[in-house]
């Protein structure tokens, strides 16, 4: 009797697992940035078009493959065609890279969470300098939140060449993050199935609380108006469409093998079409919801900074001209400036260079994405709220839930093929396999806790998963439609779920989606080739800001290795299988 495959206790666990995996940090810190850059409200048009044309079909395809083949990515693609085991292997390699660098974000979230229990928040004040008469120089030049991120958290080195040593505080947080992930995946679907209730639902609770708080903040409407005002001319910008497609693609987590792994634990009769639609819609609505919250916070922060800037100008003028305290207000500032310029031209021209032009627009226009948004911009807004410790704890707890939810999917993509393989699972129990995977990832992840760790993190983040994934998903679609055969797949699905396949899905799988992915692939390649040498942003402590530097040769080599190690799996395994089969056929004598 075969060992029974573990299943989800109910279909809801499967849906929550997919949501918890798909709804991740990208929804919170990438989508708002894209929305801001590409036309605000009008970005929603290309976003929805891409969701319907690209997101839903590809998601349905992966879920259907997983549910039909009932194996992890390697086994599933090998079943479709023996030459395509490399696709599964490439997915596992990419997932391995992803889980290595993704968990450091959880470590940072833990670090900030633990530091939120102090009054005042450590990133709200600059530390004092040596003789206690002023603040630390680097902190003065940058801001206190930037200082806390770059100096206290990362202790970042000036360039990628100066690696520095491992920061023990970050290493401890990374260890804790891996222990928490191990705790969740320890028992397979049994434990994962229960954890995903929390990781899927809690972020929404926090987002709703933040929505209420965000909308009631002073100046929130400025941010919302700025974001949602549609700039229709951006619709003609091809970059908007390309970025919408890329965002849908990566946000759903296609091509990593996690969705195949999750779906393989389903009952074969599960209606995966419905689930695909639900998950992709929830993922996109969460992005929009999160960006409403983000923009109300942006608006608050921008208004706060704008008003501080105005107050500084007022103070400067009041002190220079010994005007009565309280006489200058924001409403009469311009008039008084004009009067002073005409009445005391000499003195005014002395003071003029120090008067900054305060502009709400320029504060709002500072678009940030990625770790900068979460750990610098949000913390800056939080420190100015009342009861900031509470909001800080809530926010980083939400980040943790989102991050751990995605990690569950990443590790499932690696573990499912390993536990499926008879060789490994006969020697080791699944707890040991999970433990080994977590241990290996944790040890490699220590690289990201070094002083130059953030630069390596950026390398992995930008290059490890982008190009290979496009190729993997392209090969996946082509394999299912043309190698396995669309008609055969259709009849299999019908037999499995009892529902006929809509013509829409067939049209998308066979025609539109592959073309879309090919165009995305071409765009990415040409972008890399045209920009020439790759550059990165390094933190300059003396200036207190980021500067652009070129990658050294060995970093470029590692980037190349990252991309090649996953993409080369596909042709190499195909070639290997072909050779092995040829040899076998050569050995056995031909049947008469």
């Amino acid at each position, binding site marked *: *009797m*075969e060992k*029974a*495959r*573990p*299943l989800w*206790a109910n279909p809801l666990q499967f849906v929550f697992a997919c949501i918890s995996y798909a709804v991740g940090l990208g929804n919170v810190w990438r989508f708002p940035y894209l929305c801001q850059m590409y036309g605000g409200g009008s970005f929603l048009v290309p976003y929805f078009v891409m969701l319907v044309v690209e997101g839903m079909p590809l998601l349905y395809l992966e879920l259907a493959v997983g549910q039909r083949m009932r194996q992890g990515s390697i086994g599933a693609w090998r079943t479709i065609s023996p030459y395509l085991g490399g696709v599964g292997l490439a997915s596992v390699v990419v997932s391995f890279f992803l889980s290595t660098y993704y968990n450091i974000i959880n470590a940072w979230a*833990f*670090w900030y969470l*633990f*530091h939120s*229990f*102090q009054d005042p928040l450590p990133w709200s*004040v600059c*530390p*004092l300098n040596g003789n*206690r*008469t*002023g*603040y630390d120089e680097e902190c003065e030049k940058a801001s206190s939140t930037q200082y806390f991120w770059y100096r206290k958290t990362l202790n970042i080195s000036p360039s990628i060449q100066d690696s520095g040593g491992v920061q023990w505080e970050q290493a*401890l*947080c990374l260890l*804790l993050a891996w*222990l*928490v992930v*191990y*705790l969740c995946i*320890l*028992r397979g679907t049994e*434990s994962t199935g229960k954890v995903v209730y929390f990781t899927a639902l809690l972020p929404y609770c926090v987002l709703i609380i933040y929505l209420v708080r965000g909308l009631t903040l002073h100046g929130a409407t400025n941010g919302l108006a700025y974001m949602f005002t549609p700039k229709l001319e951006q619709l003609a910008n091809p970059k908007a469409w390309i970025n919408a497609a890329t965002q849908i693609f990566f946000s759903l987590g296609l091509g990593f093998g996690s969705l195949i792994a999750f779906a393989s634990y389903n*009952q*074969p*009769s599960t209606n995966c079409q419905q689930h695909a639609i639900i998950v992709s819609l929830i993922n996109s609505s969460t992005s929009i919801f999160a960006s409403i919250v983000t923009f109300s916070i942006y608006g608050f922060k921008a208004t706060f900074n704008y008003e501080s800037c105005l107050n500084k100008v007022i103070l400067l003028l*009041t*002190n220079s001209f*010994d*005007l*009565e*305290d*309280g006489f200058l207000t924001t409403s009469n500032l311009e008039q008084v400036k004009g009067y002073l310029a005409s009445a005391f031209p000499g003195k005014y021209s002395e003071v003029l260079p120090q008067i900054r032009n305060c502009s709400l627009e320029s504060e709002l226009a500072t678009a940030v994405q990625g770790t900068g948004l979460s750990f610098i911009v949000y913390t800056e807004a939080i420190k100015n709220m009342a009861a900031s410790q509470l909001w800080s704890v809530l926010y980083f707890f939400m980040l943790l839930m989102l991050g751990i939810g995605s990690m569950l999917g990443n590790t499932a993509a690696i573990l499912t093929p390993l536990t499926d393989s008879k060789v490994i699972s006969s020697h080791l*129990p699944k*707890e040991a396999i999970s433990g080994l995977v977590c241990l290996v990832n944790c040890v490699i992840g220590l690289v990201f806790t070094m002083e130059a760790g953030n630069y390596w993190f950026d390398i992995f983040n930008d290059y490890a998963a982008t190009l290979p994934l496009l190729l993997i998903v392209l090969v996946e679609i082509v394999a299912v439609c043309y190698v396995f055969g669309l008609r055969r797949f259709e009849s299999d699905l019908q037999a499995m779920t009892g529902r006929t396949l809509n013509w829409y899905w067939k049209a998308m799988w066979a025609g539109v989606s592959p073309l879309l992915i090919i165009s995305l692939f071409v765009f990415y390649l040409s972008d890399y080739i045209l920009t020439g040498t790759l550059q990165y942003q390094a933190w300059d402590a003396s200036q207190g800001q980021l500067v652009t530097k070129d990658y050294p040769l060995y970093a470029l080599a590692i980037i190349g290795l990252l991309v090649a190690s996953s993409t080369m799996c596909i042709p190499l395994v195909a070639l290997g299988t072909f050779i092995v089969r040829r040899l076998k056929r050569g050995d056995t004598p031909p049947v008469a």
Partner: protein
Amino acid sequence: MRQNNSVTQEHTRRSKAKADGENAFKVRLSIRTALGDNAYAWDTNEEYLFKAMVAFSMRKVPNRETTEISHVLVCNVTQRVSFWFVVTDPLKNHTLPAVEVQTAIRMNRNRINGAFFLNDQTLEFLKIPSTLAPPTDPSVPIWIIIFGVIFCIVIVAVMLLILSGIRQRRRMSKGPTEVDDSEDKCENTITIENGIPCDPLDTKGGHINDAFMTEDERLTPL
């Protein structure tokens, strides 16, 4: 004559306040910013209080215990409110060195601020930097305590899960008679009979095999 003398004395003292620029300090008050509607007006009485506070601070310095309020000179009062002040020593007829005045004011800054309901930012002595309060540094950083707590909880949970997993496996391998245990857990798994999964059929509860036709359907209907 005496009146003339005192007027000229006042005059020379006032000129000392301007002339001895290096021993004079500019003071800036932002009363409206600090107190809003409760702001008081700056008049000569407040000036008198200020002079008294400066004299008080100077009396705390060794060798200067005899400083009187009249030794402190205030001039150039503007609407801001800002003014210059200087402390004189009438015996030697010169102004006290800036360093002494600076030290005296720094040591008594809190008292001076308190007398006017202001703080370091709203009552500024230009050229006298205020000592910033150092941030409170607990002996053990708070984050390590919280980290330790969560770390221990997670380790205990991991141990518990691993141990219960080992125990379950030992129980399963010990007895095929213990099949009821695994049956409960397997109610959602596929039962395989003859290598054919029965799952597409009915797996709930008993093992009804829908492949067999029911009595009524065996005979083709007329």
